[in-house]
C-alpha cells in the first residue's frame, strides 16, 4: 500500500491513558546503596551491536555492587519482546533498557512499564512518537545515511554507478538509513543507484549478492551496505574478483572488523557509533531515573540523547582507539 492513511476517531483511548502516573514509583536510591535491578532487553542478543550495548550497560553498573543487570534476547521477534517486557514489569525491575524490535509494536508495553513506575530507556530506536517515556538514546539513522552518501559521492568523484545491499525488508532503522542515503545521492546527478538487493544482514549472502552485482555491472563504482557485516562480505567478494580497492564499499555500524578492513583498504568507509558508549549512557540515565522525583507524564516528548554518528574513512580510522572498537 501507499498514500495517505485514514484517521480513526478513538475517544476512549486518549482519556485515562496516563492515569496511573508515577504514583506507583518505588522509593529506591541506587546511589544510596539500595538493591536495584535493571533489565536490558535486546532485539537479538547474538549480534555485535547488541553485545556492545549490553557490555556498555554492564560496565557502567559494574562499579556498584548493589546494582544487578539481567539481559534478555527476543530472538528478533516483537511478540517475544512484548512477552519479556510484561515479564520484566511483573518481576519488578527498577528500570528497563529496551532496544525495540519494532517501535510501534512495543509502544503499549513501554507505556505499561512507565505507568507501573518503571522508567524505560530505549536505545537506538524510538517507540512510536506518541509514547512518551523516560529517555531515548539513539543515533539518527536518516542522518547517518546522508553522511555516508556525501562522503561516498566525494570518494567516487561525483559520478558512477552504486548498488545497495539491504537487510531484511521492513525494519525501521535500516529503512531510514537507506532512505537518507538515497535522498542525498539524488543530489548528485552523476551518480546512479542501479540496483538494490537484500542479503538479510548475512555476510555470506552479501558475498553472493556482490558477485552478481559484479557480473551485472562491470563498471560498478560503489556499494553501500546497510550494515558492516554485509559490507565486509561485499569487500571479500570484490577482493576475490581482483577488484580490491577499486570499488568504493561502505557499511554502517562501525564494528571492529569493518574498521580493520577500512585500514587495509578493502572497505572505503563506515558510519561508526560507539555501542559501548550508547549502552553506558543508557545505563547512566536509568540510574538517574530510578527513584527520582522526575515525572515523565509532564513531558510533551521523550527526551532524546543523540549519539552523533561518525563518518569513518581511511583518513580518520586511526583516531578510533583500540578500546573503542567493539
Amino acid at each position, binding site marked *: *500500500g*501507499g*498514500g495517505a*492513511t*485514514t484517521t*480513526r476517531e*478513538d475517544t*476512549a*483511548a486518549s482519556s485515562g491513558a496516563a492515569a496511573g502516573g508515577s504514583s506507583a514509583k518505588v522509593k529506591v536510591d541506587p546511589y544510596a546503596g539500595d538493591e536495584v535491578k535493571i533489565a536490558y532487553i535486546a532485539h537479538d*542478543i547474538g549480534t555485535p551491536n547488541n553485545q556492545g550495548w549490553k557490555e556498555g550497560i554492564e560496565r557502567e553498573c559494574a562499579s556498584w555492587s548493589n546494582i*544487578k543487570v*539481567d*539481559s*534478555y*534476547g527476543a*530472538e*528478533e*521477534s*516483537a*511478540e517475544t519482546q*512484548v*512477552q*519479556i517486557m*510484561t*515479564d520484566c514489569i*511483573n*518481576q*519488578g525491575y527498577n528500570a528497563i533498557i529496551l532496544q525495540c*524490535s*519494532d*517501535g*510501534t*509494536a512495543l*509502544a*503499549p508495553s513501554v507505556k505499561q512499564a512507565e505507568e507501573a513506575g518503571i522508567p524505560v530507556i530505549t536505545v537506538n530506536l524510538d517507540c*512510536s512518537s506518541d509514547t512518551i517515556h523516560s529517555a531515548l538514546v539513539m543515533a539518527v539513522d536518516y542522518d547517518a545515511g546522508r553522511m555516508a552518501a556525501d562522503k561516498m559521492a566525494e570518494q567516487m568523484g561525483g559520478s558512477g554507478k552504486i548498488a545497495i545491499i539491504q537487510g*531484511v*525488508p*521492513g*525494519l*525501521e532503522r535500516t*529503512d*531510514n538509513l*537507506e*532512505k537518507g542515503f538515497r*535522498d542525498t545521492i539524488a543530489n548528485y546527478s552523476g551518480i546512479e543507484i542501479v540496483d538494490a538487493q537484500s542479503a538479510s544482514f548475512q555476510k555470506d549472502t552479501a558475498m553472493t549478492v556482490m558477485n552478481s552485482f559484479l557480473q551485472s555491472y562491470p563498471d560498478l563504482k560503489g556499494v553501500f551496505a546497510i550494515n558492516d557485516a554485509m559490507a565486509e562480505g561485499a569487500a571479500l567478494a570484490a577482493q576475490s574478483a581482483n577488484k580490491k580497492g577499486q570499488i568504493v564499499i561502505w557499511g554502517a555500524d562501525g564494528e571492529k572488523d569493518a574498521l580493520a578492513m577500512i585500514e587495509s583498504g578493502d572497505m572505503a568507509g563506515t558510519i561508526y557509533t560507539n555501542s559501548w558508549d550508547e549502552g553506558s549512557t543508557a545505563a547512566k540515565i536509568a540510574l538517574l531515573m530510578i527513584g527520582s522525583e522526575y515525572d515523565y507524564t509532564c513531558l510533551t516528548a521523550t527526551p532524546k540523547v543523540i549519539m552523533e554518528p561518525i563518518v569513518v574513512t581511511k583518513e580518520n580510522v586511526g583516531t578510533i582507539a583500540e578500546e573503542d572498537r567493539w
Partner: protein
Amino acid sequence: MKRMNQTTMRRLISIGMLLILVVLFTILAGAGKGKFFNFDNLIEVVRDASIPAIIGVGVTFIIITAGIDLSTGSMMALVGMTMANIYAYTLLPFSVMMLAGILVGLLCGLCNGIIVAKFNVPEFIGTLATMSIFRALTYIIAIRDANGVIKSQPMNHSQYTWLGTGIGKFYYVIIAMIIIVAAGQITLKYTRFGTNLYSVGASKKAATLSGIDVAKTRLIAYVITGFTVAIGAIFTTARLQSATTAIGMDFEFNPIAAAVVGGVALSGGSGDVIGTLIGALFMATLENGVRKLSINTAYQYVIKGAIIIAVVIFDATYKARMDRKAREEGAKEGLE
C-alpha cells in the same frame, strides 16, 4: 477400557511433567512476588502459551494427517497486514476488518491445502514455499510512509485493542484458547471429520479403501489451520496494537513443537489437541522459567534444549512400556 486407562495415564504423565517443571522453577527461581511462582507470572505463562496453542489446534489436525505446516508464521503476518490496510485506509468497522483477516487466513490455508493435497507436493517443501510466498505478499501490501519506506501500522483504537487485554488478568486470548481447544478436541474425538483425520494419518491407502476422501480431509485440515492462524493474528496484533511485516517471523516451529512435545506423532495418526495445549504450556513455562534463573542468555539456550531432551526421553521410555503392555492385552483378548 484398558486403552482408555492408558491414554488417561499418559495424559496424567504429561501433566505431571509440566508440574515438575513448575516445581523445578519454583525451587530454582523462587515463589512470591517478582519470582516464578505467583499468580501474575503463571497467568502470563498461560497467556504466552495461548497463541501457539490456538494455532496449534489447526497444526495438530494437520500433523494427525501426517502433514506439517511451516507457513503459519508468515500467514499470521499476511493476515495482520491485511487488517492493517483496512485499518489504515478505510473506516470499515472492526468486525469487518477481522472478518477480512479470517478470510485471508482461510484462503492461505486453502492455498496450502491445494498445493499439498491436490498437487501432491510434499508438505514440508510445499508449506516452506508458501512460507516465503506469504511473507513476500506481506511485504508487497505493507504500509509505507510518504518516503516509500515500510512502516509498522499502529492499530491502537480501543475498540480493537481491548482484545489484547482481559477481564483483569483473565486475558481474552486465554478464553479464546480455551474455546478453540475445546472445539478442536470435540471435533477430533466426536465427529466423523476427526475420525477421518486419524484414518488419513494412519494410512492414506487404507483411508482411501475405507471410502474416505483423503484429499478433501487434508485440505480441510489446512483451511482450519488458516482459521486458527487468523485468530492468532487478531489477538497478536491487538496485543501489539500494531501490525508489522515481521510478525510471526520464525514462529512456525512453535505450534509444531507444542504439538510434538504434547505427544502428537509427526508420523500421523495419533495425538490430540489437549496434548498440544499441554505442550504449549510446557514450552511457555520453560521459556519463562529459564528467564527467571538470571543466567547468561547463552546458557538459557543450553538449558532449554537439555530439558526438552530429558523430558522426551522420559516420555518415550514410558510410552514404550505402555505400548508393550497394551499389545499384550490385545493379544490376550484375541485368545478369548
